[in-house]
């Protein structure tokens, strides 16, 4: 039955109270451990299409008569357009239409960052469109950009109101602490760098706008376009069958889509608007830089009694203030905590959610601080973390729906114990060490989300839901869940997704929410179909329903009888069993979070500052694992991105003009295959007994969270150097080594002076 409830909705760590309709099914959770299909490794169902280059991405959509759009972007970090003339562009060959901020309010007269969209043109070819954009005459009034986040905070240039949080009395506690550490940490801005750039093809079919777009949220795109262009929502159809990476940057429609839609309306032709790699680096979002001024105090027994953090997020011209303060507030049971968080509004590209926004940055600072504290106290870093474990949610005393962080720590022990042996490998130049860091994040998902399941007379099932598979293997995981529930082999279940006109509403694929939001809805729909099949079987063979179940493509009776599913469904001819399902509510009065720990083994060349990550052990607790193969890939991918964030990626701006200097993939250094360490991946794999009919939490984000701190802590273990900023490039590594050497010298010199 449908119920209307008032509940907390969480996306990327942002909570809001909303009214939600929830429908609950009567399905009991499956037992823990590998089942027939769920919990067993499955190759991705669309793997062949992707590997053979047959999968049609937005980049591959070619419609008859399609025009190509190009966008005039601000070359300046801050400017006002005094005058703009589209006529020279419109006069060029092949040009069909042009629009500026005078025609559409999603284009900017006062761009606030380099790359902001000012005007757009469409033409027969991309080259003609680009030439036309360059022909637009603009008279700019250029402003001096504001680029320093501290200065922005001092001037009150904030993205939103500051957030201050206090529990207990930090100053008093620090005064009583046996050891206090104070340090400033910095993290850099990094780019999502999806391989498929942001792009859309818009075509009008009568009153309906059809939008092919590389997106993580087809329903969000639908609603945003409908709102901005004044259309009925059902007159916007959004299609994304395959998409080439998003990592949080593709949650909305974006100006490029709106421009394509508007130009398509004006020309009556389909219009493609695709960002170039350089435009992608300017205007597709980024993980914002942060400054973290932290203090921590502990008693000699390792009890942390105070933590304080002043956090500044260098948000950029737009975006939101991600929870850099979250880990400090939530990860450990600490009595006295005070955080302040400010989001600086700057003349740089807007931040967008990037895989665990805020927590990646905040965990780096907090978990490095913890190890500095451990070193000062002479307490084992793993022991310190265990000692301060939070048994209840420290924010409001709620119980956790499930939490196996202690079990993660226990499983980390053998890897952590290796540090003696690893350190012993050190020689004059290469120093080896081991470090670890904990992970906390959301990832519980939530309602609403829906799915339909269709079972035909050939005893094959199709899951229909308008979700998207952003490369995480959602098609496969959903098929596994439906197959398990229907007692079908996996190859008899197919998933149709990626089209808002062909399936019910489905969750955004962000915030580690796909499995926990969609999985239960799919199981619920499959359960509805299963119930109907059992009802029919009971009538066909005169059995009691409770004696019948579905397994291995058979209808099985507890009295020993069994019949192939086809022998029942084959009677139906063209009739179909149709199941519907919805995501139920999250447990009330409980906090749903994900946890984990990573252990890093590194080697540092102390003469050249080279850091080599040799091994990462990742142990995460995200409830039930649906597809161990896909889950392992998620963990490896998160760690690879984390290694880029930790060692080589850095969006650099010219300090005077705000020009983005690292627009290309030679200058902006993503990890290559040669940078990847040995990765060992373990899951607790215990269903969260309070969470949905599935007991699974999300895994997209957790693995990227603790890696940077684990590496920095391993570097400290190897060299004694305190890393304070990301990326740990040669300059930062050599700086930290020099600082450590100077401190050692001071210490050695101290008694004699």
């Amino acid at each position, binding site marked *: 039955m449908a119920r209307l409830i008032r509940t907390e909705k969480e996306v990327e760590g942002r909570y809001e109270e909303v009214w939600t309709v929830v429908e609950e099914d009567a399905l009991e959770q499956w037992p823990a451990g590998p089942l027939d299909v769920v919990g067993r490794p499955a190759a991705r169902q669309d793997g062949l299409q992707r590997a053979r280059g047959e999968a049609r991405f937005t980049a591959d959509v070619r419609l008859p008569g399609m025009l190509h759009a190009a966008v005039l972007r601000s070359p300046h970090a801050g400017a006002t357009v005094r005058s703009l003339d589209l006529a020279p562009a419109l006069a060029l060959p092949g040009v069909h239409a042009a629009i500026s901020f005078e025609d559409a309010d999603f284009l900017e007269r006062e761009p606030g960052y380099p790359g902001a969209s000012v005007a757009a043109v469409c033409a027969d070819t991309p080259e003609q469109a680009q030439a036309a954009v360059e022909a637009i005459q603009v008279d700019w009034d250029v402003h001096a950009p504001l680029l320093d986040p501290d200065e922005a905070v001092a001037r009150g240039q904030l993205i939103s109101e500051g957030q201050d949080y206090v529990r207990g009395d930090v100053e008093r506690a620090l005064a009583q602490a046996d050891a206090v550490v104070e340090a400033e940490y910095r993290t850099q801005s990094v780019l999502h760098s999806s391989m498929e750039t942001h792009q859309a093809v818009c075509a009008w079919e009568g009153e309906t706008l059809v939008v092919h777009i590389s997106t993580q949220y087809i329903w969000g795109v639908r609603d945003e376009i409908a709102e901005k262009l004044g259309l009925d929502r059902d007159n916007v159809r959004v299609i994304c069958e395959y998409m080439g990476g998003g990592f949080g940057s593709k949650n909305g429609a974006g100006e490029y889509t709106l421009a394509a839609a508007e130009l398509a309306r004006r020309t009556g032709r389909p219009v493609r608007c695709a960002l170039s790699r350089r435009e992608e680096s300017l205007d597709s979002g980024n993980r914002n830089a942060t400054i973290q001024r932290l203090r921590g105090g502990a008693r000699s027994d390792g009890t942390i009694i105070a933590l304080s953090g002043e956090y500044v997020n260098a948000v950029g011209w737009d975006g939101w203030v991600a929870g850099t303060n979250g880990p400090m507030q939530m990860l450990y049971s600490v009595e006295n905590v005070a955080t302040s968080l400010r989001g600086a509004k700057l003349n740089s590209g807007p931040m967008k959610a990037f895989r665990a926004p805020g927590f990646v940055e905040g965990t780096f600072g907090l978990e490095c601080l913890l190890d500095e504290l451990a070193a000062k106290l002479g307490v084992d870093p793993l022991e310190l973390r265990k000692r301060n474990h939070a048994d209840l949610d420290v924010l409001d005393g709620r119980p956790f729906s499930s939490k196996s962080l202690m079990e993660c720590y226990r499983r980390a022990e053998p890897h952590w114990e290796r540090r003696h042996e690893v350190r012993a490998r050190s020689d004059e130049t290469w120093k080896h060490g081991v470090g670890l860091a904990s992970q906390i994040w959301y990832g519980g998902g939530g309602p609403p989300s829906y799915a339909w399941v269709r079972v035909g007379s050939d005893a094959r099932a199709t899951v229909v839901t308008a979700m998207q598979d952003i490369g995480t293997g959602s098609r496969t995981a959903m098929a596994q869940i439906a197959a398990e529930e229907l007692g079908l082999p996996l190859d008899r279940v197919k998933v149709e997704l990626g089209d808002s006109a062909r399936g019910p509403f489905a969750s955004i694929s962000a915030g580690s929410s796909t499995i926990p939001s969609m999985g239960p809805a799919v199981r619920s729909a499959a359960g509805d179909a299963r119930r109907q099949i059992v009802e029919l079987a009971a009538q066909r063979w005169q059995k009691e329903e409770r004696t019948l179940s579905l397994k291995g493509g058979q209808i099985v009776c507890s009295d020993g009888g069994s019949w192939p599913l086809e022998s029942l469904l084959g009677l139906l001819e063209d009739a179909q069993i149709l199941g519907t399902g919805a995501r139920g509510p999250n447990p009330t009065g409980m906090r749903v979070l994900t946890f984990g720990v990573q252990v890093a083994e590194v080697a540092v*060349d102390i003469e050249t500052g080279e850091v080599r990550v040799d091994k990462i052990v990742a142990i995460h607790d995200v409830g039930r694992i649906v597809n161990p193969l896909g889950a392992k890939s998620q963990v490896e991918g998160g760690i690879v991105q984390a290694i880029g964030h930790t*060692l080589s990626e850095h969006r*650099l701006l*010219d300090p005077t003009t705000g020009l983005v200097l*690292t627009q290309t993939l030679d200058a902006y250094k993503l990890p290559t295959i040669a940078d990847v360490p040995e990765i060992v991946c373990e899951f607790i794999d215990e269903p969260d007994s309070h969470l949905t009919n599935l007991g699974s939490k999300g895994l997209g984000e957790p693995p990227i969270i603790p890696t940077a701190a684990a590496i920095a802590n391993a570097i400290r273990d190897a060299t004694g150097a305190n890393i304070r900023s990301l990326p740990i490039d040669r300059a930062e590594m*050599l700086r930290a080594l020099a600082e450590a050497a100077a401190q050692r010298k001071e210490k050695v010199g101290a008694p004699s002076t």
Partner: protein
Amino acid sequence: MELLRPESSAEAVALLGNGARALAGGTDLVPLLRDGLVTADALVELGRAVPAGIDGTRIGAGTTLAELEASTEIPDALREACRLAASPQLRAMGTIGGNLLQATRCWYWRLAVPCYLHGGDRCHARDGQHREHAIFGNERCASAHPSDPAAALLALGATVRTDRRELPVADLYRLPTDDARDVTALEPGELLLELDVPRPDASAYLKAMDRQRWSFALVGVAAARVGGETRLALAGVAPVPWLLADPAELDRATPLPGTAYKVEIARALVRRALARTA
């Protein structure tokens, strides 16, 4: 734009100039043309016009870095410099001649900022972001020469033959001046044909970069020993490949605030390269 495919070097040379540009592997030129940093009315494809392959100490300018990487005949320093350069595809496409003449990777220059090298009045990197930039010869332009093989060839004392002369690799480069904002000394239309790479008794190339592979050198150090004499040359430390008179010259480096770390890396790599070739 027109594509010309001469059959001989003489024919190629006759076609060059007047807006016609030489095209070898295209890995640098094609992006530069697209970005408008280089303009051309015609491209003279050198495939059949410039020698390729290794013959004793001579290497055709059209030899790809991939061929050099796989060769057992050439000195270690050159082979290693080729192996650690660029990416596999770029090494398969790019020629040694083109590699020596490639443009700087300075982001200001690549983004068409009107900097000194583009004819402007100042180097934007000096006051801006310059973590990848020079520690020598950087007074006017702080760009860092990106070629690994150039440093190796410089240490090896290689010479290059063009359609009109032979010159030491050292003379192929010069720091940009107010009158000539270019780092190579070739005349307009002059075509690089062949290298002559003497065999040292020992040689090595060591490279510090931001990733394990596919990165331009933060610091590359080539060392080549002939008898008791070892020559050192560096990549990524000056607008041109930099011949290091002796290790102590590093004490006289003129790093920018953001490139001081390169001096330290260079010291370590020079020490190691000398030990490797001793």
